[in-house]
């Protein structure tokens, strides 16, 4: 039972101007082990706040969030994180970056070298072990970030717009990679994204969040992620059902955006 359970989470900030911002309001959900959840929403709807709470970087103002019945009260190895820009350590090589978590645990260097090589193989970076990370392209950097996170064998993987800064082609390849890893490792994954298409393609479950206050607006259960394991992603994108869902969610988000604009005016 290592489900992620969130009960009535509220997050209230005070902005530097003194305004009170209700970033999350009564967010309740349960994510079963091995599920892939994508979170979608306009900017300012509290996606990243939710992720930071799950990672343990933030404490909710009220409510309880547990992973495997254990309350999350700080960052931990069991919850790995992948950031938008990779957040790699430039002063280390690719292999050293991947090895970072194991080295922090002071594991035997001989064993870890083997493990690092295995993971570099999985993410498709064989032979890049000694390359400095600043010489890598954006897609490769994200592969390193994935391997660095996965080598620690976390129960939950949190991805904060991991593919946001990549070009379309690389993005597609990375999407396949994420699906492949999800299938092979059976990890629980929360992935935050701006792209409706990406959310639909990758998400076994999709939460569409709404802003002010940040809350879960609508929930979908979708078959495309499982389809994507076998089929070509581009074909799924042309699927009738996929197109309908995409248009539905897009117009939903458009409405939300317009509502915000209206509020401001």
């Amino acid at each position, binding site marked *: 039972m290592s489900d992620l359970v969130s009960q009535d989470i509220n997050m209230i900030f005070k902005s530097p101007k003194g305004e009170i911002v209700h970033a999350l309001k009564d967010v309740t959900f349960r994510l079963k082990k091995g599920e892939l959840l994508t979170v979608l929403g306009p900017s300012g709807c509290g996606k990243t706040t939710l992720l930071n709470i799950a*990672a*343990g*970087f933030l404490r909710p103002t009220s409510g309880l969030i547990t992973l495997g019945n254990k309350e999350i009260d700080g*960052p*931990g*190895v069991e*919850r*790995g*994180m992948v*950031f*938008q*820009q990779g*957040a790699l*350590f*430039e*002063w280390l090589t690719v292999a050293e970056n991947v090895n*970072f*978590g194991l080295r*922090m*645990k002071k594991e035997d260097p001989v064993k870890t070298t083997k493990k690092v090589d295995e993971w570099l193989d999985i993410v498709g970076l064989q032979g890049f072990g000694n390359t*400095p*990370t*600043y010489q890598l392209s954006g897609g490769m950097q994200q592969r390193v*970030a994935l391997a*660095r*996170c996965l080598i*620690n064998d*976390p129960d939950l993987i*949190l991805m904060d717009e991991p593919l946001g800064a990549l070009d379309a082609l690389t993005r597609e390849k990375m999407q396949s990679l994420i699906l492949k890893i999800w299938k092979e490792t059976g990890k629980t994954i929360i992935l935050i994204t701006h792209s409706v298409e990406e959310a639909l393609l990758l998400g076994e479950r999709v939460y569409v969040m709404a802003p002010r206050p940040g809350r879960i607006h609508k929930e979908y259960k979708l078959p495309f992620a499982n389809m994507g394991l076998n089929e070509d992603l581009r074909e799924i994108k042309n699927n009738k059902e996929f197109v309908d869902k995409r248009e539905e969610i897009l117009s939903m988000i458009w409405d939300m955006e317009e509502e915000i604009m209206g509020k401001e005016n």
Partner: protein
Amino acid sequence: MITGIVTFLVIFAVIGSILYGQRLVKTEKSDAVFGNPERAKGGLHWVVVGSSFLLLSWLYYSWDIAKAFYPKSANELCQVAKVNESLLSLKYLFPIEERQHKSTALIKRENINIQKKIILIQNSPDLKDKDKKLFIDLLNKTKKTIPLLTDEKFLENKTKNKIGELTNRITWLTEDFQKINYPPIKSIEEENKRIEALKKQLGWGATGMEVPPLPESKKGLKFHAAAQELNEISDEFFSMRNHNVAYVTLIKEIRNEIKEYQNELNDDQELEMTLIKEIKKLGQRIEYESVFPPNALNEMEKSIREFDVAQKKEQGNLIYVDAFLFPAGTIVASGPTCAEDGPGRWLPKPSDTFRIFGDLLKPSVGFKMIPMIWYEMMGVNRIVGFILPDWIADIMPGKYPVHSSDGTVKPNFKSKVLDIVTGEFNAFKIPVPTGHIWDSFLRVFLGLVLGIIFGVPLGIFMGLNRFAKGFFDPLVELYRPVPPLAWAPLVITVFGIDNLGKVFLLFMVSFSIMIISARAGASGTQLSKIHAAHSLGASRWQILREVIFPNSLPEILTGVRVAVGMCWGTLVAAEFLAGTSGIGFVENVARKYMQYEVIWITIFVMGMLGLLFDVTIRKIIDKTIPWRGKG
């Protein structure tokens, strides 16, 4: 000799490089438009031209080219300057370089002075009419002495003869001067004396005196002798007084009247006292001035003009050497002492500079008994004794031995430890660097290392911790903006003028810079990296060591680079203030003794060492943080 060859080589290099550059421009592809940075690449030939110009300017302005091609010129020009100086007072009598005869100018001025005084007295409200009349009467009489001096019919034969004699002497000098065997040898004794004195004289460009004053060549001797002769003539002329009987009678009369009047004056008549003194002074001035009748000196003027022409002809090409090869202040213009003010004085010649640099580098010579940079053999025991603190022996168990009744001391364990920590044992010797340059280098190095050791951790701590930032900020911000040298008097008082004081001063400099840069580095760490490290299971200490420290390395190393520059500048100034060794000390001593070669050498050494520091750190930066600017 070498300078001459170098000069030609440099000129050839310049011409060759310019020609090469011209050809390069013609053959080059012209796809580079103006503003394209590609166009600034290459251009080694311009480096040659640039350095050649620098070298050429140095050679030229230090008068080394003049010395190379006309080695006698400076000394000969010095003799010419002597003639010019002696001739000058005689020339001033006539409209040769002036507009008027000197007599004319004097008469004009004295008449004006007397007239002014008359008006002053007439308008004075405090004077009695009787006194006024007396004063004006006296002034008019004084005025009347002038025609007695300027009228040819009063000119006495004695004076006429003297003028004629001096004129003849100048004419003879002009004739003799142009002869080859001038000056004649007066006596063997005097000639030997002259040669002896000449032997003691150091050459051109020797330290302490740029141009030697005694004549070294035949030509120089000629001018030297003529200058002496002219000096005698002009002395005799100016001691001559154009006084005749009529003048002397009148001036005596005036003087007696003044005396009589002065005797009758009371002490409280201050105004009258002052005025009568001034009237007396007016008369005396005319008495001692060389005023002559209009045409009395015509012959003499002619002879002086003739001599001037002759001496200019005799100078030959020296005039051009003086004008073109002694830039920014010629030797002749600087007068007969030859202590010229040109750049030859403060800009040493390359040849001298390299010779003295070579001497300074010799370990046996050095500067003030200390070599510039060398090594000395030092026993390992001294180094051990210096590094280990003495209290190690004190905390050992037991007591120090006490001497026994038979007058011997038996060492025990504790005393043996004491011997080791104080360095009192025999050990092999190793070479240790020493010298002025090494001392300066070591001070900068120690100050810098101490600054890094203490500054970096504190800076990172301040970048991460609210308490540390708040607590140390006032301290650092208060002392940091003060120019380091302003602390020097205090630091030197507390820590002494030797190494400790200087190292502490440099520590203060580098400490604040390292704090600021480490703090900026630490607080500039991306939050996502720290988050990533947290979720990868790193502890606080691990995050500090593995993430925050390497992430702030670029800032820290940039700080080191800045600190090195600051330390170096401060050190030289601190060594100027006090101390007994170091490159700044050398310059300060050289300044006191006006050893311009040494001053320039120290400047050069400092530049080179500063460059060495900077290049080293740049290399370290490239090696340790290759990701800088790419992350």
